[in-house]
């Protein structure tokens, strides 16, 4: 049987993604551990967010320290849409995501002219300003006392599958963005914007597109996070440490790689869960050490590490290029 796939899709990657999702989808039917169930749900949301952050930070090399702005906006807009307008949950998520994506364009279209550290500094400003406005605008966010979302029996349990689907979509989008011919154009922009324009890459439009997708996906993550906890509060949703966490996930897993940030998100969420319970004062310090180690020894993070191991074990498997 021949599937009508675009030529850049490796069937093996598609099968791996589908198989992983199927196994994870069946998981809750086989065990009844609520703690693991919840931890996995949070991990899925983390994976989707880290991958979305990587589209901008990794593929385009525009490292954002302000993505919590879209996470929070998506969360509160979806909550408002669900409560005041009675929108069904998934529609409200998408609505929140679109608004968050548009918001990203509003500040990002002018800001993306800056590159590297200058862009990063601008995003810190955007993130903090959004947090303050969010706290002040209590008609949207409920101010410092936050917003409560409708609770349904069993919702938390079923959200597992929604979160899994979200992570799967983010994974597929990461793959498509990087492997299709768009991905090469993004890497070209990352390497040299002007030279990319000189060979026909419309840098401004592509950067805007990626920014929108990244912001929208992060917004949907914020919305699902809100539904999951059924209570959200601006200080937490727009928090700076939330933005930092995606940078960390990306760096730990391998910035700019397709699946690295997902790996980073898994490590990050699990590690944090363990550390917060056991050494609440230490955990940020340990992340700091981990970050320094990764940057010093393996800039491509865990992905780089596993490639290195694989290359040593089976040198015949990996060639330097990727012409297939």
């Amino acid at each position, binding site marked *: 049987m021949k599937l009508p796939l*675009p*030529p*850049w899709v490796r069937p093996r990657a598609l099968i791996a993604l589908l198989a992983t999702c199927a196994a994870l989808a069946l998981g809750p039917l086989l065990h009844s551990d609520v703690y693991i169930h919840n931890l996995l749900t949070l991990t899925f949301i983390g994976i989707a967010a880290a991958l979305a952050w990587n589209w901008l930070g990794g593929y385009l090399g525009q490292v954002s320290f302000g993505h919590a702005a879209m996470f929070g906006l998506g969360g509160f807009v979806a909550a408002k849409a669900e409560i005041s307008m009675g929108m069904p949950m998934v529609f409200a998520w998408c609505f929140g995501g679109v608004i968050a994506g548009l918001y990203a364009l509003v500040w990002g279209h002018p800001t993306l002219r800056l590159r590297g550290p200058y862009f990063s500094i601008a995003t810190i400003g955007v993130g903090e300003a959004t947090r303050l406005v969010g706290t002040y605008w209590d008609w949207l966010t409920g101010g410092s006392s936050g917003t409560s979302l409708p609770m349904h029996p069993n919702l938390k349990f079923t959200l597992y599958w929604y979160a899994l689907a979200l992570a799967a979509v983010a994974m597929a989008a990461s793959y498509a963005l990087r492997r*299709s*011919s768009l991905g*090469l*154009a993004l*890497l*070209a922009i*990352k*390497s*040299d914007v*002007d*030279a*990319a*324009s*000189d*060979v*026909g*890459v*419309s*840098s401004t439009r592509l950067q805007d597109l990626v920014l929108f997708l990244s912001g929208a996906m992060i917004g949907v993550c914020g919305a699902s996070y809100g539904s999951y906890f059924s209570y959200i509060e601006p200080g937490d949703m727009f928090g700076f440490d939330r933005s930092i966490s995606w940078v960390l996930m990306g760096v730990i897993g391998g910035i700019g790689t397709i699946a690295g940030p997902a790996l980073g998100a898994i490590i990050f969420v699990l590690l944090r869960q363990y550390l917060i319970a056991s050494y609440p004062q230490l955990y940020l310090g340990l992340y700091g050490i981990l970050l320094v180690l990764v940057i010093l020894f393996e800039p491509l993070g865990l992905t780089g590490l596993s490639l290195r191991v694989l290359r040593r074990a089976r040198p015949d498997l990996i*060639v*330097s*290029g*990727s*012409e297939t």
Partner: protein
Amino acid sequence: MSAVLRADGLSKRFGGLKAVDNVSLTLDEGRILGLIGPNGAGKSTCFSMLAGSTSPTAGRVFLGDREITGLPAFRAARGGVVRTHQIVRPFANLTIFENAVVAAVQCSGLDHAGARALARETLEFAGLAARRNEYPAGLTLAGRKRLEMARALACAPKVLLLDEVIAGVNPAEAQEMVTLILRIRDERKVSIIMTEHVMAAVMRLCERVVVLDAGKLIAAGEPKEIVQNPEVIAAYLGKKHA
């Protein structure tokens, strides 16, 4: 003989400085036009305006009958005017093959497979096929200049603007580069404007040469006449030698 690229009265001011002042030039189809002049004469600024990376303060640029003045660089490139850079700018994070694929995909309007075939064929043409899966950092300067040209060629241009592709390479490599440029004109049917300091190459390659000095066009004609022109000699060597 029809003009493929024409510039009318191009000027560019940077504040009080006139980098290019009222320069007109015409490139005929299938020809190589030399653009020479001492350092700072405005050659690269001229190139930037022709390729769209800088918009002119005054003047117009035509590609065939179509006006392309002030189009953004990516539109000019898709339209058929592609430049290379004096200081090479390969995409270091892409393989040599992928460098060519980006250009082919964005400019040629071909699908995935077609663009890859064009990129592969272009690398073969430029003598880089054997190293296509390596990264540009592994190439010598001459190799990277070749890549710069191959990447521009993968755009399937009508007009190629070569900014000092020969300067800085050793004599044997320079010879190969001259051959490559001639093959681009003859086999690829691409018209070329080139800036160059290596006069021997200019004499061999260009049918016509225009000379810039301090932003102004001071002479135009066959290379043999140009090197005898007192104004040109004065521009390079000072009035005493003219």
